[in-house]
C-alpha cells in the first residue's frame, strides 16, 4: 500500500473471456489526468474506437475514482464512468456521488474497467482481492431496490455497496442509468443500457483496505479547518435545508424554468415546487454522501396519495423540473410518484422527463393520437399517464419503444423533429437557454449532449446581471468547463465547492498525494482532458454542425415572463467560443492547440 492516497491499481474484468486482471496505476496518471473523468477520457480514447455502436460488446464501462476517494477530504466521493453513448453516439461520462466510489477504493481499486459481453445475466462481486462473476438469474427482471436487497441477502452483508441496473437497463433502453445504493445515479448518456448490453446486472463491492495519505496529521488539520466554511457558506446552508430545489424560486421567477416541453419559461403553478414548500410538505430527513458535511440529499414521502404511500430519496431539482414542470405537473403527489417510478425502473429521470414532455406536446398538437398512445391521454399535467408512459419506455411497449431509442429518434419517426428538445440526442436540463445565454453554449458544445453540469454557468450569469448577453460568455463557459473537468476528475461534488475553494483543493492534493500540484498545471491538465473529449467525437465525424440547439431556442422568442422576447444567437456564441478554445471555425481543435496540450 502506497502512502499517496491512491490504491495504485485498477481492476479489469472481461465478461466474454471471464478473465479478471489487476493493472498497476502509478501516481503520475493522477497527476496528468487528475482522476475519474480524466482517466475515463484517457482509457476510452486508448481502448474504445469512437466509431463503434454504444451497445456493441467492444464498448467498455470505465469506472474511476479520484485520488481523494475514501479519504476524509470533505465532499469528495464522486466516481466517474466513461463509455461510448448509445443515446448520443458521442463520448460520454457520468458522475455518481454517495458511497459506492469510496467502497471500491477500500476494496483496493482506483478504477474498474468492464469489457466484453457475458452470455448469461451475471453480476460482479468484488470482495477486496476476491473477485467473482456470479449468476444473476435470480436478479434479472428485478427493480432497483429489490436488486440491492437481494444481493445483500445473498452475500449476507448489509454494508455492501451495490451499483446496478433496473429493467430499463436490461432492455437496453438508451436512457437507462446505472444506480448505486438505490438512489444515486450515474444518470445520463445511457450507461445503464451499455451495462444491460453486457448482460451485467450489478456490481457489488466490499472493501477493508487502508487508504493511506502522505501527511495524515496535516490532512486532519486542514479538514478540521474546512468544516466551519461549509456552515458559514450561505449556498451550502440553503442546499442543506432545501436541497437543490432551492433553485426553483430563482429560475422560475427569472422565467427560464423548463415548463411544458420548454414552450414556457415560468408558471404560477411551478411555485408549488419552491424549496421552502418542498421542505415543509414532503421532506422528512436529510441524507449525506460519503464525507460530506452539507447533506443536501433529502428523503421525501407522502403517506397517502392517489397512488398509495410514496417514499424516496429526492427528487432533486433536475428531476423535479424535467419530470415535473416540463410535463406540466402541478402537485407533489404526481412528482414523487413519477420520480419513484424512474428510480425503480432505472431510468435517467432527466432524459425520461424530456421524452415524456415531447410525447405530451405531440399529443396536444394532434401529432400523436389516442390510437398511437393506446388510449393514454398524454396531455400536460396528466401524472397518471406520465407514469404509464415511463413504464412503456422501460419495457419498450408501444410509443415507449420509440422513446427508448431516444427523443431524437422518436420525434423524427413521429414527423415532428423540431419538438424534441435535445442537442446531440440528449435532452436539456431545467435551464431554458433563452434565459441564460452561457447555458446555450454549455449545452451546444458539451461532449455528451445537452448536459448542464459540463459548465453550469447560469448562477454566475444571474449574479452578474448579464444573462441575456452573448458577449463574453465564451470566456465564462471556457473557464467553467475547465474548472469542472478538474473537479469532476478530482472527485469533488459541485455543491461542496461552496466552502471548499481551489487553493484548499490544491493543499489537499499535496497532503494526500505528497505531490505539489500547481493551479497552472491543474488547469492545463483540465484543458487537455476537455480537448481529448472533443477529439473523441471529432474522430467520429462530429463538428460545428452537431453543436446545435432546437429551433425553439434560436427562433421562437420566449413568450412571456422575465425572459420574454429572448432567443439565442448561437452562431455568434460559437464563433467566439471556438476562437477562445483555440479550435478552428468548424469546432475542431487546431494542430497547434493539440500540440501545445501534448496530444
Amino acid at each position, binding site marked *: 500500500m502506497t502512502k499517496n492516497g491512491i490504491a495504485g491499481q485498477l481492476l479489469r474484468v472481461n465478461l466474454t473471456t471471464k478473465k479478471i486482471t489487476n493493472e498497476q496505476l502509478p501516481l503520475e496518471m493522477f497527476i496528468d489526468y487528475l482522476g475519474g473523468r480524466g482517466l475515463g477520457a484517457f482509457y476510452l480514447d486508448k481502448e474504445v474506437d469512437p466509431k463503434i455502436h454504444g451497445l456493441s460488446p467492444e464498448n467498455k464501462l470505465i469506472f474511476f475514482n479520484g485520488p481523494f476517494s475514501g479519504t476524509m477530504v470533505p465532499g469528495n466521493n464522486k466516481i466517474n464512468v466513461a463509455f461510448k453513448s448509445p443515446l448520443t453516439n458521442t463520448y460520454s461520462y457520468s458522475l455518481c456521488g454517495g458511497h459506492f466510489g469510496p467502497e471500491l477504493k477500500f476494496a483496493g481499486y482506483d478504477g474498474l474497467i468492464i469489457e466484453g459481453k457475458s452470455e448469461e445475466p451475471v453480476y460482479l462481486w468484488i470482495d477486496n482481492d476476491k473477485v467473482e462473476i456470479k449468476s444473476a438469474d435470480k436478479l434479472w427482471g428485478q427493480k432497483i431496490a429489490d436488486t*440491492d436487497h437481494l444481493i445483500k441477502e445473498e452475500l449476507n452483508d448489509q454494508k455492501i455497496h451495490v451499483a446496478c441496473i433496473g429493467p430499463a437497463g436490461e432492455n437496453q433502453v438508451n436512457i437507462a442509468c446505472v444506480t448505486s*445504493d438505490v438512489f444515486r445515479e450515474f444518470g445520463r448518456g445511457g450507461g445503464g443500457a451499455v451495462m444491460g448490453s453486457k448482460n451485467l446486472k450489478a456490481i457489488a463491492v466490499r472493501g*477493508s*483496505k*487502508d487508504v493511506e495519505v502522505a501527511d495524515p496529521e496535516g490532512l*486532519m488539520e486542514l479538514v478540521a479547518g474546512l468544516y466551519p466554511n461549509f456552515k458559514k457558506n450561505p449556498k451550502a446552508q440553503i442546499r442543506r435545508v432545501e436541497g437543490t430545489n432551492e433553485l426553483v424560486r430563482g429560475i422560475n421567477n427569472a422565467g427560464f424554468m423548463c415548463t411544458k416541453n420548454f414552450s414556457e419559461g415560468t408558471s404560477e403553478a411551478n411555485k408549488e415546487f419552491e424549496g421552502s414548500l418542498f421542505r415543509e410538505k414532503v421532506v422528512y430527513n436529510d441524507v*449525506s454522501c*460519503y*464525507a460530506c*458535511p452539507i447533506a443536501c440529499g433529502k428523503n421525501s414521502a407522502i403517506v397517502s396519495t392517489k397512488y398509495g404511500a410514496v417514499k424516496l430519496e429526492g427528487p432533486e431539482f433536475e428531476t423535479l423540473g424535467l419530470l415535473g414542470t416540463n410535463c406540466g405537473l402541478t402537485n407533489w403527489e404526481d412528482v414523487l410518484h413519477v420520480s419513484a417510478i424512474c428510480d425503480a425502473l432505472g431510468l435517467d429521470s432527466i432524459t425520461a422527463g424530456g421524452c415524456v414532455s415531447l410525447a405530451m406536446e405531440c399529443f396536444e398538437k394532434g401529432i400523436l393520437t389516442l390510437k398511437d398512445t393506446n388510449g393514454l391521454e398524454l396531455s400536460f399535467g396528466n401524472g397518471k399517464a406520465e407514469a404509464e408512459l415511463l413504464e412503456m419506455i422501460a419495457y419498450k411497449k408501444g410509443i415507449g419503444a420509440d422513446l427508448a431509442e431516444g427523443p431524437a429518434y422518436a420525434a423524427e419517426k413521429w414527423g415532428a423533429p423540431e419538438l424534441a428538445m435535445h442537442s446531440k440526442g440528449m435532452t436539456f436540463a431545467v435551464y431554458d437557454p433563452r434565459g441564460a445565454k452561457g447555458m446555450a453554449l454549455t449545452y451546444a458544445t458539451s461532449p455528451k449532449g445537452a448536459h448542464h453540469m459540463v459548465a453550469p454557468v447560469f448562477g454566475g450569469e444571474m449574479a452578474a446581471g448579464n444573462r441575456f448577453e452573448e458577449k463574453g460568455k465564451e470566456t465564462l463557459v471556457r473557464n467553467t468547463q475547465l474548472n469542472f473537468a478538474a473537479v469532476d476528475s478530482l472527485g469533488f461534488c459541485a455543491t461542496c465547492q461552496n466552502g471548499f475553494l481551489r487553493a484548499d483543493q490544491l493543499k489537499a492534493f499535496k497532503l494526500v498525494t505528497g505531490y505539489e500540484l500547481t493551479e497552472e498545471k491543474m488547469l492545463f491538465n483540465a484543458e487537455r482532458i476537455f480537448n481529448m473529449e472533443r477529439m473523441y467525437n471529432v474522430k467520429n465525424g462530429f463538428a460545428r454542425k452537431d453543436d446545435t440547439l432546437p429551433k425553439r431556442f434560436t427562433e421562437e422568442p420566449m413568450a412571456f415572463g422575465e425572459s420574454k422576447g429572448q432567443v439565442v444567437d448561437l452562431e455568434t456564441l460559437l464563433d467566439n467560443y471556438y476562437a477562445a478554445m483555440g479550435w478552428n471555425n468548424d469546432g475542431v481543435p487546431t494542430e497547434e492547440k493539440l500540440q501545445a496540450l501534448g496530444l
Partner: protein
Amino acid sequence: MSKVLVADAKKCVGCRICEQWCSMSHFRTGNPKKSRITVTRSHEDYMDYPVVCRQCVDTPCIKACPTKIDALSKDENTGAIIVDEEKCIACKMCIKACPYNAIKVHPSEKYVLICDLCGGDPQCVKYCPENALYFLDREEADKLVAATKEDE
C-alpha cells in the same frame, strides 16, 4: 463520574465523518473497517444508524471474554473498555455478548476493536457535523435514550 457515548440515529445523515476521524486518529489511515463507530444506511426505512459502544455498567463483553485470555478491562478514568491487543485472540465471544453490536474484529489483525473514548476526548463527537453524537454523564445519557425510545 465518567461520561458515556450516545448516538441519536434521528439526527444522523450518514456522512460517516465519525468513522473517518475514528480511523484517522487511531490508525492514521482512512478505513471504515478500522473505525470503532460504524454507520449503516438502511434503504428500507430510509435511516442511518450509527453504532458504537455505550459503556454498559454491567460490561457483558468483559464477562464474556474467556478467563484465561482476560483481554478486556475497564479504564478507571474514562470508563471505556480497553482491549489488550497482545492478549486478544479475536475469538469473538465479546462480539456475541454485546447487546448493541458495537464490537468488530480488526480487518487484518487478530484482535477486536472497541471504542476507547479516545482517552476522554471522543473525536467522533467533536467532528460530527450534525451533533448526532453526545458525550454525556450517564444520568443525562439515560434520559436521552429514554426520550428517543418514547419518540419511536
